[in-house]
């Protein structure tokens, strides 16, 4: 029984960074901008979050982590929305920038390139069965129905989706295409930054280089697996989170060489993308830069 509760609790902890970033991915992709830089936004989130918490405590840490994610997202928006740079290229460049700058700044502030000292997280909340739980976990799951509500019921959601489906149509109806694309990208940066900060402050209690372990990419896969919807993304994130948590437990059991076990979440990602993508329905104008004076 304890084992099962512990497995569920650990799955939830593993799910949260994927889920938060995945929800962010929903916002940016529904607005028609592919954001492969989410991994980098998580990285800067984990570093700046740790830095903020180290000097000023966890609240400032979260604020700085989210701002860092958004700052990177702003670069992505300027490059890919305003200047119509290829969205993949821009995202890849940001990932490299995030990695390099975090390593450099870590050396500057922590005098260590790859880790920070211990940093404080938020005060946990008590939840029945699970016990002490990070408030960010609760927040992540609240964000799912919240995002669904935003997308399905509000003016903001309708317009956001319209610029991802047919920006020209939206433009002719007076919807500010660029504004909503920026909004989608910035929200994704904010959430990826939050997810990164969660990793360093709540999950590990310190910043470690490479601690995101490709979760930004897995979040994209979860969002695709979830067919660009918040609830779908949640179920897919839970699956990935469960796989990861399970892989830890099996590693401890020493049955199979642990390197193979560690591959499980990534193999799952590949399998999902190869198998599901054909049937999924991305926003019609996803990944296509919008230019007004087209003929």
């Amino acid at each position: 029984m304890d084992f099962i509760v512990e497995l569920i609790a650990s799955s939830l902890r593993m799910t949260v960074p994927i889920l938060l970033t995945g929800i962010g991915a929903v916002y940016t992709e529904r607005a028609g901008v592919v954001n492969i830089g989410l991994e980098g936004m998580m990285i800067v989130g984990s570093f700046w979050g740790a830095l903020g918490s180290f000097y000023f405590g966890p609240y400032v840490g979260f604020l700085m982590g989210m701002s860092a994610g958004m700052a990177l997202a702003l670069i992505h928006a300027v490059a890919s929305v305003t200047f119509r740079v290829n969205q993949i290229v821009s995202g890849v460049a940001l990932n490299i920038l995030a990695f390099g700058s975090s390593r450099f700044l870590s050396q500057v502030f922590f005098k260590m390139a790859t880790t920070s000292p211990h940093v404080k997280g938020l005060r946990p909340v008590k939840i029945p069965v699970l016990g002490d739980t990070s408030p960010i976990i609760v927040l992540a799951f609240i964000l799912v129905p919240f995002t669904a509500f935003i997308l399905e019921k509000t003016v903001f959601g309708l317009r956001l989706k319209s610029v991802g489906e047919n920006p020209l149509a939206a433009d002719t109806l007076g919807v500010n295409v660029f504004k909503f694309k920026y909004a989608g990208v910035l929200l994704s940066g904010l959430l990826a930054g939050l997810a990164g900060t969660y990793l360093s402050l709540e999950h590990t209690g310190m910043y470690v280089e490479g601690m995101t372990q490709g979760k930004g990419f897995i979040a994209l896969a979860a969002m695709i697996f979830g067919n660009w919807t918040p609830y779908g993304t949640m179920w897919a994130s839970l699956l990935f989170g469960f796989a990861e948590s399970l892989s830890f437990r099996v590693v401890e059991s020493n049955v199979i060489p642990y390197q193979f076990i560690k591959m499980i979440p990534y193999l799952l990602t590949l399998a999902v993308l190869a198998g599901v993508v054909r049937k999924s329905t991305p926003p019609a104008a996803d990944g296509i830069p919008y230019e007004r004076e087209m003929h």
Partner: protein
Amino acid sequence: MEKAIVLKNITKRFPGIVANDNINLEINKGEIHAIVGENGAGKSTLMKILAGLYQPDEGEIYVFGKKEKINSPNRAIELGIGMVHQHFMLVGRFSVLENIILGSEKKKGITIDWENARQVIKELCDLYNFSVDIDAKVEDISVGMAQRVEILKVLYRGADILVFDEPTATLAPQEVKELFVNLRKLKEEGKTIIFISHKLDEVLEIADRVTVLRRGKVIGTVFANETTKEELARMMVGKPVLLKLDKEEVKKGDIILTVENLYLRSESGQILLEGINFNIRSGEIYGIAGVEGNGQRELAEAIMGLRAISEGEIKLVGESIKNLSIRERRSKGIAFIPEDRHKQGLVLPMKVWENVILGLHRKREFIRYPFLNVEKIQKFARGIVDKYNVMLSSINQPVEGLSGGNQQKVILGRELSQDPILVIAAQPTRGLDIGASEFVYTRLLSLREQGKAILLISADLDEVLSLSDRIGVMYKGKIVAEFKPEETTLEQIGLYMLGVYTDKDGETA
């Protein structure tokens, strides 16, 4: 009479051209005013200025007597000017309701007030007798209904002036009739309608007044009931135009193309072509009519080898070609004029002479091993340019710099240079002006006289009727009827195109 819109000395320049040259135009309130002109005459530019998408370089715009600056689509909507675009500006995955309110949503608290929107749209539909299914997804509705959704969009925004950009281009004849009923109803209710078209019959039927544009200039404004098709055509082109085609009697020869029981499925298993049967003899033009998206494109691509067929047989002069590659099919004498010359027919940034030998580049005569024999190719290209009278500054010019008509001539020249026995012409006059279309027509007819077999696929029913020897009508991937043009009418074909009739005896589905 009150003026809805007055344009004074409107000029709009683009690099290298003057799209609108000192345009003066008055639109009366409550009239249907047609604006006609060839492609490139400046109609679309003028409309985009009215819609707030372009800013004029010079000139003034008055809306209901007041001088206005229309500097954004929002401003146009505020002024009561609504555009019904030629290419529908709809979000396929949204419902009809969502499409109509997008951009002008009314809120209840923090959510959208769906009930109010539903109510308002219902009232509009009742007032104008529109039939639409509010909750249907737009990707599932017919072209005619999609157009009504576009009209509802602008009415919902309170538009008093409705601008229709080539509204009949993609409609079947019955849908055109319905549109005209709707337009007259709108006019009755006091709306002003600007109707852009190049189809003169329709303009004469629906409009009160007609303004003709040519090369960015206003040639004149006439009353529809005081003019004729010939006069309008002359104003548009600047010289008398041949509107009737001379079709000589040609003796039909052997069967060139046979398509038997052809099936084609999409990757996801959807049936795109279902049991297609027909043949074409030498000296014959076989026309395919149908509303776009009913399998015409797939049929051409299947014959060409661009898509693998699931079942059936394709024979060229009695010999199966279904397992041959595209190159092998071309070398057996199939020429292809694709419907989208920018995506399939040409490589736009490449030079004219390079485009002229696309697909022919392996021919011995063009090779000086291991290189291309550029000198010979350029000579060949110059030959085609002369023969087809392609207007260009140099054969080293990228083909994207040519006008649509001249691009089409490059394709015709290339495809016909190898003496084909079968020519597949898909939408061969799409986007061409009257002069260039006439050129294509006379070419196709002379190919017919030379004994070639021609498969003509076109969304323009007039074109199919006047060129073809036989016509097959496609609906949902099937040829539902076959006619000789002299034995049928536009209306009859239209009923088959819409799927009202599904077999040749004219029984309703």
